[in-house]
């Protein structure tokens, strides 16, 4: 009983981890299924069909490619703009700073459906044809605030004396930035970029409002496919993404912790 009380938090923690991982495990398992009917809900028979022909579902790989492309471009642009803004907000005092902070916060506090629909009204009013451009505009918009917040936290945790020390040691402001500040803020910028990519790659609601009839991203493809029975290939992509994410995040964390251990 005493043991239970001591380890209750561990037990609950592990159960919650299981809750988080359960759908991913199902995705992996069902990527090896050969469904009996249209719907891949019931285990039928082990098969490597989907793995051997990942692009076998028409339109899926095109949609995937588009999502990757949009994710990379959106992450790149919002990381550059967001990092600049984060520096301005954490390093300078200027009139209107708190209003600016609020403007950065609001998009995060706006439900996607509101953001998507309001952008649609703007694009309609402007007469802008929905498509890749409108999707990019929308993705940059909703990832921007997350980049600003992530980078700002990193910049704020930096000791301002470090930049002063660089200046004291004959570095011009530009040199101090590139030799001292940037390398130290880089992990935060990378985290912001990764988050921006993940948010863009994952988005369905905002995209659906602004994609138009012919541009189909991967989440839109999955949504459409789900109505008439999603192909097994979707699970293959899901599995690859999960394993890839575990690998990337795992490697990043391992490098981080090894660095800490060596340094300690």
């Amino acid at each position, binding site marked *: 009983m005493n043991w239970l009380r001591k380890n209750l938090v561990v037990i609950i923690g592990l159960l919650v981890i299981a809750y988080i991982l359960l759908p991913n495990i199902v995705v992996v398992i069902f990527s090896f299924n050969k469904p009996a009917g249209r719907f891949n809900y019931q285990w039928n028979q082990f098969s490597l069909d989907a793995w051997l022909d990942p692009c076998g579902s028409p339109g899926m790989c095109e949609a995937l490619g588009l999502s990757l492309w949009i994710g990379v471009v959106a992450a790149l642009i919002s990381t550059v703009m967001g990092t600049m803004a984060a520096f301005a907000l954490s390093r300078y005092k200027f009139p209107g700073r708190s209003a600016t902070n609020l403007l950065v916060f609001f998009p995060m506090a706006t439900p996607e459906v509101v953001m998507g629909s309001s952008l649609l009204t703007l694009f309609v009013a402007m007469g802008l044809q929905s498509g890749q451009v409108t999707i990019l505009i929308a993705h940059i918009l909703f990832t921007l605030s997350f980049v600003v917040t992530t980078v700002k936290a990193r910049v704020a945790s930096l*000791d301002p*004396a*470090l930049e*002063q*020390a*660089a*200046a*004291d*040691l*004959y*570095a*011009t*402001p530009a*040199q*101090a930035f590139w*030799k*001292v500040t940037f*390398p*130290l803020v880089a992990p935060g910028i990378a985290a912001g970029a990764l988050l921006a990519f993940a948010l863009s790659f994952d988005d369905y609601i905002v995209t659906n409002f602004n994609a138009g009839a012919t541009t189909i991203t991967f989440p839109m493809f999955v949504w459409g496919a789900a109505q008439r029975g999603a192909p097994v290939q979707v699970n293959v992509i899901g599995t690859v993404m999960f394993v890839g994410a575990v690998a990337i995040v795992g490697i990043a964390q391992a490098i981080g912790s090894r660095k800490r251990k*060596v*340094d*300690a």
Partner: protein
Amino acid sequence: MAAGVQRRATGELRLVELFREYEDFVAVNGIDLDVPPGSFFALLGPSGCGKTTTLRMIAGLEEPTSGRILLGTEDITNTRAHQRRVNTVFQSYALFPHLNIIDNVGFGLRQLKVANWKTKAMEALELVKLADRAKQKPRQLSGGMQQRVALARAIVNEPEILLLDEPLGALDLKLRREMQIELKRIQQEVGITFIHVTHDQEEAMTMADTVAVMRSGSIEQLGTPADLYDKPATAFVANFLGQSNLLPIEVTSVSGAVAKVVSHGSELTVESASLPDGQTAGLRLGIRPEKLRLVSATDSVWTNRLSGEVTDVSFTGVATTYLIRMAWGQEITVTQPNDGTARATLGEQVTIAWDPHHAFVIGAD
């Protein structure tokens, strides 16, 4: 050893009517100061007295509201930090966490495009006895070592002036004592002008040739440590550097080298030379606790004598400190060295005495 970092400072640092004002307060309120080349100079004062702001203005990290900063014959007021041949040891050390020790120390040399920066950086690390840590990262080093790296990183550039911003503040007492001696040794070895900011009077007196005591943005008094201690010009200096017993006095007569004064009805003598020029009202006589003696009530050798009751005795080994209450209620602190003389006990009536030569007089604030 460390021939590369040998450098005699050539320029005198001059601060002329230096002001630094913020929206709501004045941090530095008009400072005029000459620091001769090669000296170990301390800016001493409580927190908020403007000493760090002064230092940062010399470094170029803060702009003066008005006034000028001269280094040798050059006016550096409008140059920026990276253009000044001045280096700083920061309070938090500010070692670059992403660079190893040798790259930290070599940072300034590489900015200055010094070809053999690595050799020079190693020499500087040898000077602070950390050559074996060159490849490690700052966080792998203890606080004391980080402090020495910060020192090496600044010294290696052979600046005209080295600024130290409370460099020993984060170290424990024992380490601090060691580093004080170490800093003094290094300063004498490299001959660079050191300007040291501290709130620790003992630290300032141990290391510096000249100490400037600062208070609310101005320099209160400037002099050698012995001068400041023995002849403080104000009550603030008298109490900030060590402890003082202050008695209000009125001058009754001056004849030659000796002046007669009265304090709370007791007639005392002071040296005429110690009286501030032209001031007669609000004078106070100051005597350090260790300059006071416990003497027998009948002793007539001493001209300056007061008596009172012992209200507190604390024995510290090397000395005994007494609090002695005077008839008018003031408690006077007396430190008696543990030299074998008889100790007084609590409640005892005692007579204290001092040599007029050992006392000082300060004017009204």
